[in-house]
């Protein structure tokens, strides 16, 4: 291990050692002067107590009569209390994920990835995991509406058909507008509509557009497309602005592929290297080995420099760090590298294509022969459509599950123009901005209530099937299209299955009967075959692209703004999902808010300070004429002179959760060279009023302890797989011993199972899908913005994001360097299920105890809320119920899952909903452990590895989380950790861990946790000493 010592910090206040931060840093519970209920006196307390005693004794006299209502005719395969699983598909615009839906007593309650899909391969994302709650969104339309008045389908159909007939009669124009459509049957249904009304044109657009890329490929290959990217084949990845692990194109698929080459072990001491050049610190940038900061205006120069080096042309200098190194290494990895770029500018993307072509990446890491359908939007067609509507050239428009009034830059114009149309219909399942502006609301089902099919790529098909009877009087939009086209007896299920018979069944030989074929596809959720790929020829347009891209476009203002897709709520379509609103952003750790990210240097210039409680100031500036006023968040790693603002906020018709949250940035986008541009130049922002952001984690400290994060670089790891490990020794009376082996306790013996978890810090990308999965699985309460500010978030599983740098804090200058572009490490942190648990020993009522299987159990009904356990927890993972979060109108907005009849349907019946005054924490999904064991017992066989999977493990796309029985030598965790069983004490907790990368957080304090972490390995060259680095930088 090198002597070099890094410092880790969770937020700027910690780095700067603010007085206010230090004051509270060591406290689990902080008195922030929150006045809970100042109106009550001691007298009131006595009155209340008297009343409640009387009420309790009265209530106890007679127990409520509870009813049990069985099925009238019980379906054969549905048993109350036993979940059923159905394969289906999550689709939100062009976002795609093949999923398995867990249905308990007829209600979908949890989503998991479908491993049979070769696109997403069982991966999920935070949004996918959260989407199950959207099904029970209280804001959903209960049925069709005409001009905001409830109606019925018969009337709606009659009126719409009449109006369509009128329009068709006079030869008027009809438009169907949608986001990217992945569904071939939906497209076929639209064709049915078009056949009846030939003046219909179907327009697709994407809120976050990839049209520039599409056009660039049209230029390079003669055919507009977006290719597949295979990150698993790339040894060197260079991303210019593309957040491919977070939001770019197909993040689940890319994360899966990316992880393949990021995994290292004693046997595999190779990993990919990842360069990222960007303005905002994105999730992908946080995972990069080398991260260069650039302004959006430098993008062309960076690409040009790479191009010139790769092609051996005359060298140019972009002035961005690491570009030259990256380009040179690209040359060394021809055919096994990948350059991606987030730009929506055609010429920029053409240049990216040129680079990839020069490197021979086409056919290996980039597959233009296997184009993806994730983004088919056409910015020009959409802009032309709005112009047409404005000009009165269109008579009827149907918005199929899209919201252009909100998420298109010309939305305001569209909203105004819609009023004058003969017919405007929205099929959105909520009365969103577009639906409210339309004459008719003809709500579609939620995807968990629908039949549908999808084609993410040629040869890769998947089905979605209803997991619940439609909750409301909504109707499948495809059926609506066909009904309006005058079709009789429309049934979309039959339509889809007939299509599949025609398209796929007739062309295969494996199955003889269509029913068997269909059942199999439905069971698997996917149907895949090798599609014929047409060979595409690359035509070079390098010179042209290079000249356009490098043409000096002087930014007009002092600052440049990067407008990005919000990591949590995406394009805004899921803004009403509190699971995503309360999900701390992986980088900023902010919840429930919209903000501008500013670099430390700019903040100093503007005179903004952030403190540990999230206090900040509002910044006011105009982006392309749209005035924006948002709180500033000082973000380490933000490029100087740039501001980052997310899309997805500022929804006006969205339901209680996200109302009046932030500002809408879509109107600030503008068309440039035929496609939408997500960058803009602004003048120096004005600093306005103060504001308080709700951030998690920034107020905690790891107290400078060295073994929380243990990391090394690949070169060191190659030499010694235990590189980066920190093993303090203690001198005992006879010998030196490892600190973790010294114990006052006798230790436990786990005779049957010994549950443990291993988390690979190298493959964990910090995506937070596990956090949402945990929330949904374990009925974790969402507490809302104010309670997050009060440091009372309830997440059982959090992802600690540590910044680190070699620079030692001392002078202000050094601190500036430290916070300028820090390295980032993500560490999922939950109850560590310590064998010598400090919480257990301090509980006065034995509400938290140890099990014979290594679990640290929390018994809510026994807890009296002393909070001693949380105070004594070294990992700060215990959560206290400060309020009754269920059936409490105070939390109606933030926690609908426990406060509305509709929302409650998502709760997991296997897990108790906790009440006020009790402590809670990660249980290692004990309900899943018990279910797995019971299944084995019923089948009279031992429990096999892989039968018990925790929610976080199931959600983890990269497979960074491994859970299992450490007593079972055949289990994955035993093999991963290389557990060597002591034959004399096979059931002891003191197992010898053979994996040199494995460590336990705060191991030396002797609590013996059952959660192991594998060291973080960065693929960096062995660095010069910290001082030399600093000098160079200075």
């Amino acid at each position, binding site marked *: 291990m090198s002597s070099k010592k890094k410092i880790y910090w969770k937020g700027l206040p910690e780095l700067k050692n603010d007085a206010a931060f230090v004051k509270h840093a060591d406290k689990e519970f902080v008195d922030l002067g929150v006045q809970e209920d100042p109106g009550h006196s001691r007298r009131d307390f006595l009155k209340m107590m008297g009343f409640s005693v009387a009420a309790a004794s009265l209530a*106890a006299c007679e*127990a409520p*009569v*509870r*009813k*049990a*209502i*069985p*099925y*009238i*005719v*019980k379906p054969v395969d549905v*048993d*109350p*209390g*036993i979940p059923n699983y159905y394969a289906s598909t999550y689709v939100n615009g062009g976002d795609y994920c093949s999923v398995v839906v867990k249905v308990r007593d007829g209600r979908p309650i949890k989503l998991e990835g479908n491993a049979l899909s070769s696109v997403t391969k069982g991966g999920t994302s935070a949004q996918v995991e959260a989407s199950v709650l959207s099904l029970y969104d209280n804001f959903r339309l209960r049925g069709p509406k005409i001009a905001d008045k409830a109606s019925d389908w018969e009337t709606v159909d009659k009126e719409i058909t009449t109006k369509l007939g009128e329009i068709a009669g006079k030869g008027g124009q009809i438009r169907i507008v949608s986001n990217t459509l992945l569904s071939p049957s939906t497209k076929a249904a639209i064709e049915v509509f078009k056949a009846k009304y030939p003046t219909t044109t179907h327009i697709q657009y994407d809120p976050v557009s990839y049209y520039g890329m599409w056009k660039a490929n049209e230029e390079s290959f003669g055919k507009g497309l977006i290719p597949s990217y295979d990150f698993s084949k790339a040894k060197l990845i260079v991303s210019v602005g593309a957040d491919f692990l977070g939001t770019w194109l197909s993040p689940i698929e890319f994360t899966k592929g990316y992880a393949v080459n990021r995994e290292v072990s004693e046997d595999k001491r190779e990993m990919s290297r990842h360069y990222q050049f960007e303005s905002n610190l994105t999730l992908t940038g946080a995972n990069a080995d080398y991260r260069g900061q650039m302004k959006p205006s430098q993008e062309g120069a960076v690409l040009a420099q790479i191009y010139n080096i790769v092609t051996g042309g005359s060298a140019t200098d972009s002035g961005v760090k690491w570009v030259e190194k990256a380009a040179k290494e690209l040359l060394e990895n021809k055919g096994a590298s990948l350059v991606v770029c987030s730009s929506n500018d055609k010429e920029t993307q053409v240049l990216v294509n040129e680079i990839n072509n020069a490197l021979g990446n086409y056919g290996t890491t980039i597959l233009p022969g296997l184009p993806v359908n994730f983004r088919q939007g056409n910015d020009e067609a959409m802009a032309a459509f709005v112009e047409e509507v404005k000009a009165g050239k269109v008579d009827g428009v149907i918005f199929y599950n899209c919201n252009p009034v909100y998420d298109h830059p010309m939305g305001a114009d569209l909203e105004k123009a819609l009023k004058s149309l003969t017919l405007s219909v929205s099929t959105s399942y909520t009365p969103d901005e577009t639906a409210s502006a339309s004459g008719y609301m003809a709500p579609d089902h939620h995807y968990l209530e629908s039949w549908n099919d999808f084609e993410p790529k040629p040869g890769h098909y998947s089905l979605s099937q209803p997991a619940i009877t439609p909750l409301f009087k909504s109707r499948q939009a495809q059926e609506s299209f066909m009904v309006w086209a005058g079709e009789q007896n429309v049934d979309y299920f039959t339509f889809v299955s007939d299509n599949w018979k025609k398209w796929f069944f007739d062309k295969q030989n494996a199955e003889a009967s269509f029913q068997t074929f269909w059942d199999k596809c439905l069971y698997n959720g996917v149907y895949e075959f090798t599609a014929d790929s047409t060979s595409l020829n690359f035509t070079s347009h390098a010179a042209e692209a290079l000249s356009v891209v490098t043409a000096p476009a002087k930014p007009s203002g002092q600052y440049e703004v990067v407008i990005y897709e919000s990591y949590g709520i995406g394009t805004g379509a899921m803004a009403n999902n509190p699971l995503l609103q309360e999900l701390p952003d992986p980088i900023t750790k902010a919840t429930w808010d919209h903000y501008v990210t500013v670099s430390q240097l700019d903040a100093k210039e503007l005179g903004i300070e952030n403190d540990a409680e999230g206090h900040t100031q509002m910044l006011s500036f105009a982006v392309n004429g749209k005035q924006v006023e948002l709180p500033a968040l000082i973000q380490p790693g933000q490029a100087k002179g740039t501001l980052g603002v997310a899309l997805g906020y500022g929804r006006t018709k969205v339901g209680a959760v996200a109302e009046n949250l932030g500002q809408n940035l879509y109107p600030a986008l503008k068309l440039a060279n035929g496609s939408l541009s997500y960058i803009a130049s602004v003048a120096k922002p004005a600093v306005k009023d103060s504001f308080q952001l709700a951030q998690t984690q920034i107020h905690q400290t790891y107290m400078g302890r060295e073994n929380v994060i243990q990391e090394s670089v690949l070169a060191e790891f190659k030499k010694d797989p235990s590189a980066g490990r920190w093993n303090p020794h203690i001198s005992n009376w006879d010998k030196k011993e490892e600190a973790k082996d010294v114990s006052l306790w006798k230790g436990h013996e786990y*005779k*049957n199972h010994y549950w443990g978890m291993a988390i690979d810090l190298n493959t964990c990308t910090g995506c937070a899908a596990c956090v949402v999965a945990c929330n949904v699985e374990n009925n974790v309460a969402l507490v809302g913005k104010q309670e997050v500010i009060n440091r009372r978030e309830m997440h059982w599983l959090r992802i600690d994001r540590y910044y680190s740098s070699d620079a030692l804090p001392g002078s202000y200058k050094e601190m500036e360097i430290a916070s300028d572009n820090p390295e980032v490490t993500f560490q999922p942190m939950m109850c560590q299920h310590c064998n010598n648990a400090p919480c257990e020993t301090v509980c006065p009522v034995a*509400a938290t*105890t140890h*099990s*014979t*299987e290594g*679990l640290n*159990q*929390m*018994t*809510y*009904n*026994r807890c009296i809320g002393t909070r001693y356990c949380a105070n004594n927890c070294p990992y700060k993972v215990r959560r206290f119920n400060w309020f009754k979060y269920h059936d409490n109108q105070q939390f109606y907005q933030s926690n609908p899952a426990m406060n509305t009849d509709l929302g409650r349907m998502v709760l997991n019946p*296997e*897990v*108790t*909903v906790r009440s006020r005054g009790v402590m809670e924490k990660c*249980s290692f999904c*004990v*309900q899943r452990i*018990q279910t797995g*064991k*019971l299944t*084995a*017992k*019923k089948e*009279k*066989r*031992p*429990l096999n590895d892989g039968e018990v999977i925790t929610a976080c493990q199931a959600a983890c796309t990269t497979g960074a989380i491994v859970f299992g029985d450490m007593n079972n030598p055949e289990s994955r965790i035993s093999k991963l950790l290389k557990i060597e069983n002591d034959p004399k004490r096979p*059931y002891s907790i003191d197992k010898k861990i053979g994996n040199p990368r494995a460590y336990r957080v705060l191991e030396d304090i002797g609590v013996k946790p059952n959660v192991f972490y594998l060291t973080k390995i960065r693929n960096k060259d062995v660095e010069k000493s910290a001082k030399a680095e600093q000098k160079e930088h200075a």
Partner: protein
Amino acid sequence: MKYKLADLIKFFTLALLILSYSSSFSQEIPTDAASISAGEALFNGNCKSCHRVDKKLVGPALAGVQDRAPSIKWILEWVKNPAKVIASGDEYANKIYNEYNKSQMTAFTSYTDTQILSILAYVKAYKPEEPAAAPAAGAPAAGGAGISNDYLNVIIAGMILILVLMVVILGLIVSALKRFLNQKDLNEDDAEVVNSPYSVSSITRSSGFIFLVVFVVASIGFKQVIDGLYSIGVQQDYAPKQPIAFSHKLHAGAYEINCKYCHTGVLKGKQANIPSPNICMNCHTQIKQESPEIQKIYSAIGYDPKTASYTGKQKPIEWVRIHNLPDLAYFNHAQHVNVGGIECQTCHGPVQEMEVVRQYSLLTMGWCIDCHRKTDVNNKGNDYYNKLTELHKASKGKMKVEDIGGLECAKCHY
């Protein structure tokens, strides 16, 4: 040569014998005990809800069926697929079909010939229970020498009353005597005897006595309060009126229908399941059509007995839940009944004797824990427990639920 030929003939005869024996074997009703007991298990599990050996229920009494039916082969075919036999125009089949109001027997397609034959073996070997045995099992526990408990109570109460009266009378006599003696002139010794300082009133006024009484009263009161508090939420003997007067005594008791026939979830999952009316209809399309209680089922499931058809108008039945565990406690029937092999009656009591079902057990945590302490783990033949059984061999005594973590919080609370 001759010798050899005889041998050959012998061999062939033997072979023929064996052949004929084995071919007829599959059609012959076995008589061995193993087959009969296997048949009994199958009969109880599957046939008993509609058939009895010695009396007519939903279906005919099965006694003598082997002689009554056209052939054993016919029975085998009939059990596997009655519809097919009826459809084939078989005379006997159609006769029974019409006799039983055209209600068709459930097909048991998965049965092997051997299984059906073993059922027949049981039917053939069936002997009705000795009538003398019946009252012995049903009679209440007799108290003392032929005097019932009620009489005993009356006698004791009467005697206590007489004793109290005697004490009162004696007290009156004592005070009368005292008054009489005090009117006379007595010497000092006698006066001391008559006017003892330890009178009733002096004892009752003594501080020791007052303390004792207060202590006893307070203790009893305290115990009552504590017991009362502990009984909050305990609904033992809760027997609410149900929307349909379903009698377990009749179904589970008299007709001996297996609990699992209706409570289908009990081996599979958490809930035992309150049967859905379609299970009732397995029998009640035929039986007791006219009963007002059965009419309630018909109206719930939407069945018209006159036309023997379903109307599609359904209305759920709202049964009153008897066994209410708090939400914070997790209980799984499959774990106890399927894995643990516990009889339903262990917790639910003699349901087969209950006209209206009542909560038999306390269903308190103490009650659960008590059982987990006392009950042996049903590890026989269950490989899941192999490791635990092996490790337990070292310790004395049988492996109790407690020994394998059955008292841990997170087994029931999560």
